[in-house]
């Protein structure tokens, strides 16, 4: 009798094929897409269980769970793509809680007609990012929507990690007198995205900083310094992140503009567009609120790590009933650094 290969026969045409609605139907075409594309790249023992979810080994301590949808446009940009971004973004959200990121889930919403070659490239990039970070993608989901009902691909990742019993990092722990540390230059990711936008019509050698930060964070936590809180200043940029912390902790913050690293091309591109780099997104930077006494220790640990070589002390936490974030300007004046208002930027994460 005819030997039928399990379930399906002809391999996916990754080179020229496109996503169509059958790839989301729950039927054999979907199984094939998952096996020949997703599972091939993500290959790990948990995903290989092939169940509705992943069964994971016991992990002591408290859990951290974080999720992010990624809708960046364009999907491929200098320095990365939506795939690695979706891995980094969620690992970072887990890691800034002080947790060791352990597992990721990935859920894809695909637009009918999306080229399989692009999907393959994206998934390969996710797999690489996940492997480099040591955080496997253990479960996932795929849906397909009609052409015109999505924008190529959206990826939601969720991360789970474990925090040691004695560690709590939280945005409400900043206290007057604490210092604000920043791991490196700001605005690179957002401006790298903007530079790809044809209608903005500018060209700049700007590369996204997308990166997983848990290695840097581990090095910082290893100092046993009094770190109050960590956060990755993504959408809304540094300004928004600092405002969030000020609000959560009920404090004010005084930043020092001159201390904040901004790459020259990013500054210039901001000048062209009338943007302030303080509001431009980052995907591989972190802000740390640290007890003043430990500032040097933590800064030294950051600078010793490749991702923190340009780490800087950029401000301090002050008492302020209005929870204003203020900044001493390069000119020597003072201004408020407000929350982001509105948004005329392209989609960045």
């Amino acid at each position, binding site marked *: 009798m005819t030997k039928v290969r399990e379930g*399906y026969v*002809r391999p996916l*045409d990754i080179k*020229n094929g496109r996503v169509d*609605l*059958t790839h989301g139907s729950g039927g*054999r075409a979907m199984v094939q897409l998952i096996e020949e594309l997703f599972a091939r790249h993500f290959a790990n023992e948990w995903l290989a269980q092939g169940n509705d979810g992943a069964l994971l080994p016991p992990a002591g301590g408290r859990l951290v769970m974080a999720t992010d949808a990624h809708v960046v446009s364009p999907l491929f940009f200098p320095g990365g793509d939506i795939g690695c971004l979706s891995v980094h973004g969620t690992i970072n959200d887990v890691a800034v809680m002080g947790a060791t990121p352990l597992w990721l889930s990935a859920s894809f919403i695909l637009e*009918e007609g999306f080229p399989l070659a692009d999907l393959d490239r994206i998934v390969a990039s996710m797999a690489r990012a996940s492997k480099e970070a040591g955080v496997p993608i253990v479960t996932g989901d795929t849906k397909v929507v009609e*052409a015109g009902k999505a924008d190529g691909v959206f990826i939601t990742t969720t991360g789970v990690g474990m925090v040691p019993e004695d560690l709590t990092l939280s945005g409400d722990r900043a206290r007057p007198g604490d210092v604000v540390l920043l791991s490196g230059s700001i605005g690179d990711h957002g401006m790298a995205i903007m530079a790809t936008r044809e209608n903005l019509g500018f060209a700049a050698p700007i590369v996204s900083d997308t990166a997983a930060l848990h290695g840097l964070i581990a090095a910082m936590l290893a100092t046993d310094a009094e770190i109050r809180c960590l956060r990755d200043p993504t959408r809304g940029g540094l300004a928004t992140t600092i405002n969030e912390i000020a609000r959560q902790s009920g404090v004010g913050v005084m930043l020092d503009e001159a201390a904040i690293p901004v790459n020259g091309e990013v500054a210039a591109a901001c000048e062209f567009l009338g943007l302030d780099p303080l509001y431009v997104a980052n995907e591989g930077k972190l802000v740390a609120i640290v007890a003043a006494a430990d500032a040097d220790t933590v800064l030294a640990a950051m600078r010793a790590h490749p991702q923190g070589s340009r780490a800087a002390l950029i401000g301090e936490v002050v008492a302020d009933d209005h929870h204003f974030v203020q900044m001493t300007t390069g000119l020597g004046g003072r201004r408020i650094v407000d929350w982001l208002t509105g948004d005329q930027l392209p989609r960045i994460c």
Partner: protein
Amino acid sequence: MKYVDEFRDGKLAQGLAAAIAREARPERHYAFMEFCGGHTHAISRYGVTDLLPANVRMVHGPGCPVCVLPIGRIDMAIELALRHQAIVCSYGDCLRVPASDGLSLMKARSRGGDIRMVYSAADALKTAQDNPARQVAFFAIGFETTTPPTAVVVKQAAALGLKNFSVLCCHVLTPPAMHHILATRQPSDIAIDGFVGPAHVSTVIGSRPYEVFASDYRKPVVIAGFEPLDVMQAILMLLKQVNDGRAEIENEFTRAVTRDGNPKAQAIVAEVLELRDEFEWRGLGVMKKSALALRREYAEFDAERRFPLAYSVVPDNKACECGAILRGVKRPQDCAIFGTVCTPENPMGSCMVSSEGACAAHYTYGRYKQ
């Protein structure tokens, strides 16, 4: 569901199975062709074969309108969508049929074609009314069953004076196909002892057009409904005819089929459509007077006249045995690529496309028998 469930009743099926077993003479073999994909589907989905004695064999016929649609016609529909940027309305059955260049209507959608599934010809007309700034083409396929609704909407479009509606008419006729099958049989082919004749086609055209097969080719024909008990009863009736040495046209489907069919539907079809000189059927080749086209009076609703569209013959995959299968001289499992290269996900031939196709039905419902 009244008039549905009763005709799927397991107990009655046992009775009919017993009667068939009695009627089938153990000393000989019987082979009957079920003309329609609807019968093929019923036989497969309900496992009717299991209720037949081993010496009664059902042979699948060409009566699946999706299966006999040649690739070149699907290419035309795709061209309407991709090159002429028309909204193409299609019955769901056609969306996944493989066309040239690795495309299908479904894949053409994912390449930007505005292709919409409709459940009724009326939906296609409504799409045209709702999109006055776009051209809307209805990909009209099917046998005599599906033809009258197409004729109705063309008349309505004319009455409404629509300037953006047209029909890519691919309607075909069953009697020429039956003639073809009987006329092209070789002495070496498995003998066919009789036909289960069309169910819903016959509600429209009646049983009269099949009388000629009984008389000219001396083959019994039993018109039968598409429920499994209808098919079983038709088999029983065919067995009796064969055993009696009769070759008559009989009607099992009396609840819906008369000798003359539906005169109103026939009249509307005749008013709007006319015979084509010839038409290519997939697997069966070009047959004279086997299909319909819009009459000259309705030319402006004919997509083939409104758009610069040319039909090209596209040969089937060389390994594909669809032609022989549609003519009833081979079985799906006789095809070298059945179930390996050719599957419902990646159909190579027409019989694997529709769930009513012989190969798809066997793949989907019957493979365990191999």
